[in-house]
């Protein structure tokens, strides 16, 4: 799958409280989550973000709570993929489980507003603005299977239980 969009670049250690504050998490309405995503980090985020845009962060993105509302809010708001130098582990799993693509790239020089083209199958990112290329870290096969099936709900509907291929 190829994703193309504008990068929105943020820093290190963006915690789940800043992705979606605890006070907004008590809902099953995904639009409400999306309406408040990144509110405490960047009040203009919802205005700037166009559907299909790419979120780029530094180290330890998604640290803190286990709340799956964090990746859900980003996905519903229109983020097509999150690229970070590293992810907090619960967020990493949650994103895959709900079908929000993520990519760990330790070394990149992406700037705000750069146009990116991501090949999800190879983990290769082309920076169309600077003509640079980056390569993401490999994922465990079970996670690739879950992404390819469209998230954990669809994975389990299809297979009934976990399979380690």
């Amino acid at each position: 799958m190829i994703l193309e969009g504008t990068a929105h670049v943020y820093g290190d250690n963006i915690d789940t409280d800043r992705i979606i504050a605890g006070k907004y998490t008590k809902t099953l309405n995904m639009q409400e989550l999306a309406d408040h995503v990144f509110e405490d980090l960047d009040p203009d985020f919802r205005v700037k973000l166009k559907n299909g845009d790419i979120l780029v962060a530094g180290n330890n993105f998604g640290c803190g709570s286990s709340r799956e509302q964090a990746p859900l809010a980003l996905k519903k708001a229109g983020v097509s993929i999150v690229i970070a130098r590293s992810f907090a582990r619960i967020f990493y799993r949650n994103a895959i489980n709900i079908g929000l693509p993520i990519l760990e790239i330790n070394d990149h020089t992406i700037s705000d507003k750069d146009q990116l083209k991501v090949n999800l199958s190879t983990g290769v990112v082309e920076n169309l603005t600077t003509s640079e290329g980056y390569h993401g870290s490999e994922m465990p096969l079970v996670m690739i299977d879950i992404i390819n099936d469209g998230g954990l709900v669809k994975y389990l509907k299809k297979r009934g239980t976990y399979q380690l291929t």
Partner: protein
Amino acid sequence: MGQTLVEKIISTHASKVTYQNEITIVDVDAVMASDTTAPLTIKSFEEMGGSQVWDPSKVIFVIDHAAPAPNERIANLHSLMRDFARNQGIKLYDVGSGICHQLMVENGHVKPGQLVLGADSHTCTYGALGAFATGVGSTDLAAVLLTGKTWIKVPPTIKIQLNGTLQPGVSAKDLILFIVGHLGIDGATYKAVEFTGEAIEALSFDSRLTIANMAIEMGAKAGFVDTVGLELPYEFNHIHPDEDAIYETVYTFDVSKLEPQVSIPHSPDNVKPISEVEGKVIQQAFLGSCTNGRLEDLHEAAKILEGKTIHPEVRFMVAAASNEVYLRALQDGTAETLVRAGATFLPSGCGPCVGTHLGVPGNDEGIISSTNRNFRGRMGNRNSNVYLGSPATVAASALFGKITNPTKLLKEEVK
């Protein structure tokens, strides 16, 4: 080849010998979800085609994050949890019972050597009794409800050796804040942590829970606190790592000169010795949470506040970690001591810590809190400043209206 604690426990649950970095499927002994995560878990479970959970006796729901319900929308989500629990025959702890992690331990839902998943990041708390316990999201948990299993990558382990004897007034919270400050907020990401040494062996069970609880604050998948000397109300086998277990890193600290520690806004790893923070004016003090809302913590605060009155410009709120803790604090006079000093008791739950309701601070206010996180906006207002400290530091600071070193008070009393 020797095994770490996490390698041993995962091996038992995978029915084969495993070592770090292997990926395996494991049987899960128990799962827990709160009112932040259970509604999504129910939704995902139903979308997966689930009709009956794999083993109702192993599923626990707790209504604690916004309890009692602050509005009708949340009330309806609580109803959804109650209906599901009733229909499935699973245990639900309703409003006021207490905080999920305290209830899981207090009521024997988790035992040494078990593998437990909770849809809350502080599930790592149960590592204080030698269980492998880790936080997952709602959909991961729904998959366990369906299959009784999950997949897991066996984490490498960091060993933290704590030597020496703590000074009076310095507690487990100061120890773990010091370690989180040293390793950093991502210092143990994807890894397990084992805490050991004479400073750990001297700690009560309540204190060991505090240490394990904050392992997630350095990103750890699980935290294990040595069970040497630990007494539980039932027989259990102590599980120890093999002497030739392979660790990724070993840190050794002498903690005999450690002073109380305070985490300053807006990150739990932003830790300073209290001497560098003393005097910072606070308007609110909170004693409670899954980190420090246990009986021992209330006792520590009562020791400092006995016969005294808190500063007139401080709101001092206390929430026991469970109704059982609250009851004991009523029975032994601790609650009366705190209320006479000016404390307001809140229902046992998570509200103030996660900013869902109760005790939301005003703009520019300073808060000293016994909780585990001070991310921006954590207590419900992005324009407030949350400092984290031990129960003794919270009580001493409430007394003077500014961040205060509790060890000085204890020394004055000795004179």
